C-alpha cells in the first residue's frame, strides 16, 4: 500500500539500537544462574541517587506504585521497569487489536516490532524525565531555605541519566529474555526487587534519621529497638503505626497477601490428555486458576503509574489552569515532607492514598479504587490470552503439533473446549488477584508493599516453573527436550 506503515518508521533507528546477540550455544543451567544473579545485582546497585539531585530532600508522590516496577525515587531507577513494561504492553496490545498491522510470520516485521518496543521504552523515559524536570519534581522540597538552584545543564543530566538507564534496563531485560538467564527479565527483576523491599521493610538493620531520631528500616528491628528504649505499649504502638518507614501493619498485610497468592497460585483444573505417540500414556494438562499470573495486576498498576506521572507533571506545570484540580491534587506531607499525598481529583479516586479531609471522599475512594483495579484487570485478562497467543485455539494447535489429544473430546473440538475453559480461568484469576489487591491496598495502609509482594510471589511462581523445567531438561532426564531446544 502507498502509505508508510507505522512499523517501518523505526527502520532508521534500528541500526542505532544496541542488541544483545543470541547465545551461540545453549546456556547451561549454572551459567544461567550466574547471569541472572549478576543482572539482578547490577540492577539493584543502580539505585544510586542521580547526580544533582539530593535524594533526601525529594518528596515522592509515587511511593505506593513503586515496588512492582522496581523503582526508587531520586535514583537512576526513578522509573525502574515502567518504561519497558509500558512499551511492551502498549505494542503487544496495539498489534493484538490490529491497530498496528504487524505480520508476525515475517522475520523483519518481528524485528521491527521489537525495535519499536525498545525505542518506545527509551522515549517514554525521555518524555517522563523532561515532564518531571519541568514539574520541579527533582527540586528539593526545602528549596526556599536553600539558596542553591540547579542550572539548566544540571537538569539536562537527569534526562540523560534516566534515558540511558532505561536503555540499560532494556538490555538487562533482553539479556534474560534471550535465554542467558531465567526470564522473562521483567518478572525476574521485579521479583528480586520486591523481595529486597520486603526484606528491608521486615528485617532491615540500616537506619535513617527521622523526626523521632534514628530509626531502623526494618519494622521488626525497630520493634526490638523500641522495646529496649521505650515503654512496652508505646513500643508496640509505634512499630505498627509509624508512617515514614515500613511498619508492622504493612508487613502483616504483605504476609497475608503472600499466603493468598501462594494458595490461589496453586489452584488448577486438570485436563486429562493422552499422547498419540506414546500409547497408554494418560496424563493431565493443568490449567491454572491464575491463568495470566501477575500480569493483569502488573498491567493495572502500569496504567496507574503512568497516569500518576503524567497527572503529577501536568498539574504542576499548569498549576493555575482550572482543569488541574480535577485531575489530581498533591499535597506535601507535613510530618515527614518526604512524600506528596494525593488529596483530591480524579486520580485520588483511583489511588490508594488514605489522606483526605473530607470523610465522604475517604469512604468512596476504596470502592472506586477497587472497582478500577478489578475492571481493568479482568478486561486485560480477558483479552491477553488472545493477544499473547495463549488462547484455547493456540493451545489446541500446540496439542496437535505434539500429537496430544484431550480424553473425551474429538480433536476438532479441543480448541472449542479449551476456549471455554481458558477465558473463565483468566478472568476469574484476575478477579481474585485484583480483589486481594483491593483489600490489601484499598485502605491505604500498606503503601504498595503488599501489592509488590503479591506480584513478586506470583512472578516467583512463574519463574520457578521455568527454572524447574530448565533443570529437568538439563539434568539428563529430558535429553530429547534438550535437543529440541538446541535446534532452535
Amino acid at each position, binding site marked *: 500500500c502507498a502509505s508508510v506503515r507505522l512499523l517501518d518508521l523505526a527502520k532508521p533507528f*534500528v*541500526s542505532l*539500537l*544496541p*542488541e*544483545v*546477540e*543470541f547465545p551461540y550455544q545453549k546456556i547451561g543451567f549454572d551459567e544461567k544462574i550466574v*547471569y541472572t544473579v549478576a*543482572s539482578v545485582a*547490577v540492577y539493584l*546497585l*543502580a539505585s*544510586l541517587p*542521580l*547526580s*544533582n539531585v539530593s535524594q533526601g530532600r525529594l518528596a515522592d508522590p509515587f511511593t505506593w506504585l513503586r515496588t512492582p516496577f522496581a523503582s526508587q525515587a531520586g535514583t*537512576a531507577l526513578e522509573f525502574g521497569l515502567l518504561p*519497558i*513494561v509500558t512499551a*511492551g504492553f502498549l505494542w*503487544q496490545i496495539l*498489534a*493484538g487489536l490490529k491497530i498496528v498491522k504487524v505480520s*508476525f*510470520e515475517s*522475520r523483519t516485521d*518481528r*524485528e*521491527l516490532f*521489537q525495535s519499536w*518496543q525498545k525505542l518506545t521504552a527509551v522515549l517514554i523515559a525521555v518524555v517522563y524525565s523532561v515532564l518531571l524536570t519541568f514539574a520541579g519534581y527533582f527540586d528539593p522540597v526545602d528549596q526556599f531555605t536553600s539558596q542553591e538552584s540547579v542550572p539548566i*545543564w*544540571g537538569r539536562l*543530566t537527569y534526562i540523560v*541519566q534516566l534515558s540511558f538507564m532505561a536503555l*540499560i534496563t*532494556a*538490555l538487562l*531485560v*533482553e*539479556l534474560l*529474555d*534471550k535465554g542467558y538467564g531465567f*526470564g*522473562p*527479565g*521483567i*518478572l525476574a527483576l521485579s521479583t528480586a526487587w520486591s523481595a529486597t523491599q520486603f526484606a528491608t521493610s521486615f528485617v532491615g538493620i540500616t537506619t535513617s534519621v527521622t523526626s523521632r531520631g534514628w530509626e531502623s528500616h526494618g519494622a521488626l528491628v525497630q520493634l526490638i529497638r523500641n522495646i529496649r528504649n521505650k515503654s512496652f505499649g508505646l513500643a508496640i504502638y509505634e512499630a505498627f503505626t509509624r508512617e515514614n518507614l515500613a511498619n508492622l501493619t504493612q508487613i502483616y498485610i504483605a504476609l497475608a497477601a503472600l499466603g493468598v497468592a501462594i494458595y490461589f497460585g496453586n489452584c488448577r483444573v486438570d485436563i486429562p490428555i493422552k499422547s498419540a505417540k506414546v500409547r497408554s500414556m494418560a496424563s493431565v494438562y493443568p490449567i491454572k486458576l491464575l491463568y*495470566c499470573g*501477575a*500480569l493483569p495486576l*502488573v498491567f493495572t498498576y502500569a496504567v496507574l503509574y503512568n497516569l500518576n506521572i503524567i497527572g503529577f507533571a501536568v498539574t504542576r506545570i499548569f498549576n493555575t489552569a482550572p482543569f488541574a484540580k480535577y485531575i489530581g491534587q498533591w499535597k506535601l506531607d507535613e510530618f515527614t515532607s518526604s512524600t506528596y499525598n494525593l488529596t483530591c481529583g480524579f486520580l485520588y479516586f483511583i489511588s490508594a492514598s488514605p489522606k483526605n479531609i473530607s470523610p465522604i471522599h475517604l469512604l468512596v475512594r476504596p470502592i472506586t479504587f477497587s472497582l478500577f483495579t478489578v475492571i481493568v484487570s479482568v478486561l486485560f485478562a480477558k483479552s*491477553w490470552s488472545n*493477544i*499473547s*497467543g*495463549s488462547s484455547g*485455539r493456540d493451545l489446541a494447535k500446540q496439542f496437535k503439533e505434539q500429537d496430544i489429544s484431550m480424553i473425551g473430546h474429538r480433536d476438532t473440538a479441543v480448541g472449542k473446549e479449551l476456549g471455554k475453559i481458558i477465558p473463565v480461568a*483468566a478472568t476469574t484469576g484476575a478477579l481474585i488477584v485484583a480483589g486481594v489487591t483491593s483489600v490489601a491496598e484499598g485502605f491505604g495502609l500498606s503503601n504498595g508493599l503488599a501489592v509488590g509482594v503479591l506480584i513478586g510471589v506470583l512472578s516467583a511462581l512463574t519463574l520457578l516453573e521455568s527454572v524447574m523445567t530448565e533443570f529437568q531438561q538439563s539434568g539428563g532426564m529430558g535429553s530429547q527436550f534438550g535437543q529440541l531446544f538446541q535446534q532452535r
Partner: protein
Amino acid sequence: MSSSAVPGGAKTLAKRKATQENKLKQQLQSQPTSTRAAGAGGSSSTMLKIYTDESQGFKIDPLVVLVLAVSFIFSVVLLHVLAKVTGKFF
C-alpha cells in the same frame, strides 16, 4: 420467473465470492497477533517476554551489557564526586 436457479448464474457467483471472502476473513483472523503465536517465543499468558528476536541493531555480548551497566553506575558516582569536589553542578 423461473423458480430453478440457473447454474453458474449471478447467485452462484455471489456465493462463491462470499465463501472466498469468508475464507480470507478466517485467514485474517487466524493470523498470529504476537511473536509467540507465530512460533517465535515471546510473551505467554503469564510472562511478558519482550525481547526475543535478534534484529538489525549492532550486536553486543551479554557481558558487555553488564560492563556497560557497571560503568554507568561508576559514571554517576563520578559525577557526584566531581560535583562535591568542585562545589559546582555538572
